[in-house]
C-alpha cells in the first residue's frame, strides 16, 4: 500500500468525523464565497461605471438643482462644449410606489428627446419608444422593476412624490433592457415636461443634472474641466465628473461596511482552520501507535509529516469543492437571481467572480496545510518506542 493509499484509508477510518469536517469546511467556503461575491457585486457598479459619460451637477450638492438654461450651452442653442457628443438632463423625482413605499427604486424626470441618445446602454424597442414620446404621462421602466411590481406595458400606475408632493399618474409605455451589467435595471423614467408644468412657478425650469457623452473616454477629465470652467462665473457653479468617478465617491460612503465584511470573511476562514486543525490533531493522537509502526518499518519522520499534511489538505479540498458545488447553484440560480431581479438598484450584477472561487479553493488547501502543521510537527517528534507503547 502506498502512502497516498494509506491517507485515503485513514480519512475513511473515522467517517463521521471526516464528514462533519468536510461539511464544516464546505459551509465556511460557502459563506466566504457569498460574502466575497457581495463585496464584488457592490464594487461592480463602480468598476463598470461609464468612463465616457459625464454628469454635471450643482457644485454645492446634488440635492440642489441647476438652471435649465445651462443645458443650452451643451446642445448648441447657446454654445457648444468641445468634445461633447450628446447631452441630456434629468431630475431626481423621489417618488414611491403608492402602497409598497418601503421598496426603493430610482425614478427620474428626463428630457424626452435626448435621454436615450446619451443612455445608449438602455435599449427600448423602437415602437415603445415612439409611443412613450407621444404620451406626456408615459413612462419607461426597467425589466427588473416591471417584474418587481408586476407592471406591464399599458398599465396605469401612480407614484407618490416626496420631493414633489402629490399623487402623480403615469402610463407604462415601454420596458428597457440593460445592455451592460452596470446599468440599473429598476429605473422609472418619465417626461420632464409633465413634471415641470405641474409645479408651482417658482420651482419650474430647474434640472437636477446634465449628462453628456464625450467623443473619447481619454478626454473625459479635460472635457469635465472645460464644462466647469464654462459656468465658473455664474451664480450656480457646476461639478462635472465621469459616471465611474461619481459611483466611486458614492460607494465611499459604504466603505466601512465593505471593510467589515472583508474582515468577517477572513474570520470565517480562521474558524475553518480551527475546525480542521482540531480534527487532524485528534486523528494524530488516536493513531500515534500506527505512526510508531510506520517509523519502525523505516519510514522517516518527514514521511509521517507528509502523511498528516496530505490528510489535512485532502479534507480541505474535499470541503472546498463541496462548498463551491453548493455555492454555484445557490448564488447563480437562487440568491443572485433574486437580488438581480428584485434589488437591481443595489445589485445590478450578482455572480461569483472566477477569482473568488479560485481563492476559496486555494485558501481551503493552504489553511488546511497550515492547520495540519502543528499536529504534523508533533508527529515527527515521536519516539518510536514511546509511540509503539502507547495504547489507543
Amino acid at each position, binding site marked *: 500500500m502506498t502512502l497516498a493509499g494509506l491517507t485515503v484509508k485513514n480519512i475513511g477510518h473515522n467517517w*463521521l468525523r471526516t464528514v*462533519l469536517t468536510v461539511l464544516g469546511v464546505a459551509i465556511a467556503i460557502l459563506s466566504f464565497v457569498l460574502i466575497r461575491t457581495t463585496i464584488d457585486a457592490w464594487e461592480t457598479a463602480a468598476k463598470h461605471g461609464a468612463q465616457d459619460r459625464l454628469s454635471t451637477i450643482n457644485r454645492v*450638492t446634488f*440635492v440642489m438643482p441647476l438652471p435649465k438654461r445651462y443645458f443650452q450651452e451643451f446642445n448648441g442653442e447657446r454654445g457648444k462644449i468641445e468634445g461633447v457628443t450628446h447631452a441630456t438632463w434629468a431630475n431626481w423625482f423621489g417618488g414611491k410606489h403608492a402602497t409598497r413605499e418601503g421598496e426603493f427604486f430610482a425614478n427620474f424626470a428626463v428630457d424626452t428627446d435626448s435621454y436615450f441618445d446619451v443612455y445608449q446602454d438602455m435599449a427600448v424597442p423602437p415602437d415603445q419608444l415612439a409611443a412613450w414620446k407621444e404620451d406626456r404621462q408615459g413612462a419607461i421602466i426597467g425589466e427588473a422593476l416591471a417584474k418587481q411590481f408586476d407592471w406591464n406595458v399599458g398599465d396605469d400606475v401612480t407614484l407618490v412624490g416626496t*420631493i414633489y*408632493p402629490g399623487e402623480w399618474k403615469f402610463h407604462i409605455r415601454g420596458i428597457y433592457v440593460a445592455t451592460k451589467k452596470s446599468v440599473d435595471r429598476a429605473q422609472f423614467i418619465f417626461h420632464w415636461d409633465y413634471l415641470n408644468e405641474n409645479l408651482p412657478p417658482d420651482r419650474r425650469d430647474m434640472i437636477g443634472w446634465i449628462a453628456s457623452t464625450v467623443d473619447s473616454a481619454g478626454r473625459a477629465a479635460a472635457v469635465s474641466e472645460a464644462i466647469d470652467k464654462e459656468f*465658473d462665473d455664474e451664480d450656480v457653479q457646476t*461639478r462635472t465628473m465621469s459616471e465611474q468617478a461619481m459611483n466611486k465617491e458614492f460607494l465611499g*460612503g459604504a466603505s466601512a461596511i465593505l471593510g467589515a465584511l472583508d474582515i468577517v470573511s477572513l474570520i470565517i476562514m480562521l*474558524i475553518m482552520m480551527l475546525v480542521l486543525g482540531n480534527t487532524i490533531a485528534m486523528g494524530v493522537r488516536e493513531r500515534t501507535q500506527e505512526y510508531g509502526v510506520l517509523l519502525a518499518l523505516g519510514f522517516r519522520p518527514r514521511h509521517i509529516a507528509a502523511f498528516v499534511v496530505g490528510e489535512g489538505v485532502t479534507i480541505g479540498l474535499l470541503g472546498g469543492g463541496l462548498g463551491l458545488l453548493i455555492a454555484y447553484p445557490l448564488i447563480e440560480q437562487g440568491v443572485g437571481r433574486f437580488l438581480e431581479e428584485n434589488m437591481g438598484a443595489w445589485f445590478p450584477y450578482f455572480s461569483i467572480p472566477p477569482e473568488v472561487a479560485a481563492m476559496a479553493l486555494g485558501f481551503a488547501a493552504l489553511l488546511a496545510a497550515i492547520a495540519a502543521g502543528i499536529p504534523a510537527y508533533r508527529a515527527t517528534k515521536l519516539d518510536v518506542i514511546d509511540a509503539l507503547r502507547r495504547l489507543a
Partner: protein
Amino acid sequence: MIPLNYNLRNLYVRSTTTIATAIGIAFVVAVLAAAMMLVEGLRQTLDKSGKPDTAIIIRKGSDSEMPSSIEDATLNLVKGAPGIAKAADGQSQVMGECVVVLFYDLANGKGKSNALVRGVTADVLSFRPEVKIEQGQMAKAGSDEVIVGQKLVGRFKNMAIGDTIELRKGRLGKIVGVFSAGGSSYESEIWGDLDFVRGSFGRDGVVQSVRVKLTSPAAFDGFEAFVEQDKRLGLEAMGEIDYYRKQSEGTALFLTVLGSLIAVFCSVGAMIGASITMYGAVANRKREIGVLRALGFSKLTIMISFLFESVMLALLGGMLGVLAALALQLVEFKMMNFATFSEIVFRFQATPEILMNSVIAGGVMGVIGGFLPAVRAARTPPIEAMKG
C-alpha cells in the same frame, strides 16, 4: 447525577482541543455581538439627537428634512398651536432650520464626502442644551461665522478654527468654534446662522424643518392634531425621537440582516466544530462511559452530562467572544446615512442585553452541536464499552 466537576476536568485535560473549539465559537459570538452593537450604536447616536418633549414638523410626504420646505408665514401659524413651551422671555419655543448637504475634501486625501450644514437660529443653544462649545466660541447671529461638530474635525480637510468653508462660490463661512453634542448625530454637522446659510442658496423665507419644545411629552397629541388638521398647511408633526428612529430604519435593518446572516452561516461552522470535539470526547472516554453505566448512572444522566460539557465549552467560547466584542467599542464606524446622504459617525455600542444574548447564542450552539454526540454517549452499551 454525575458530578459537574467530571466534565470541567475533562475540558481542562484536553485543553488544546477545548481552546481551539472555544475560539471558533468565540469568533461567531464576536461577529454576532458586533453586528448588534453596531445597530445599537447607530440607534443611540440618533436617539441622542431626539428629545421626548420636542416635536419636529416637516412638509407632509417628505421623509426627512432634506426635501421638505416650509414658508416662514406657515411657521408663524404653527406658533399658535397648543402645548408649546414658552421661554423665560415669553416667546414660544419654536425653531425653524434649514439643512443642506455639501461636498468637502476628506483629510485622508481619499476624495470627497458629504457633510450636513444646518442653518440655526440664535436660541439654538438654549433649545439644545446638550450642545457645548468645546473650543473657540459660538457663531454670532446674523454673521458669516459657523461652528463645526467635533466629529468632523480631522475627518475633513481644513475644518478647524480659523479655516473657512465654502458654502457657494464667494460665500465663505468662518469657522470660529467646535462643538460637542453629547454624542448625537449633530456632532457630524456644521452649524451657521439660518439667514446666512439659506441666503447662500437662494432659499430666503423658507425653512425645511420646524422644531417645537412642548410643555410635556403628553402635549404632543394635541399639538399634532392642531398641525395636521389644517390641510392647507400640508404639514406633518412627529416626535423628534420617532423622527430620528425613522431616519435610521433602513440602515439599521440593513446592518441587522447582514449581521444575522453572517452569524448564522458562521455558527453552523462553529457548531460542527463543537460536534467534532464532543464526538472525540465521547470516543476517547468510551470506557469511562461504560463504567459509569455499570455503576448505575442512567442513559439520560450520561446524556445530560455530555450536553453540559458541550454547553460549558460553548459558554467559554461565548465569554471570549464577548470580551473581543467589547474591545470593538474603541473603534469608530463611519458610514453614509442613506436617508440624508450625509455621513454619520458612530461607535460599536455594547449593552448588557446584547452581551447576554450573545453568550446565550453561544450556549445554544453548544446545545445543538453537542446533542448528537451526547446521544451517542448515552447509547453506548456498557459491557462492550468496558471491553474497549
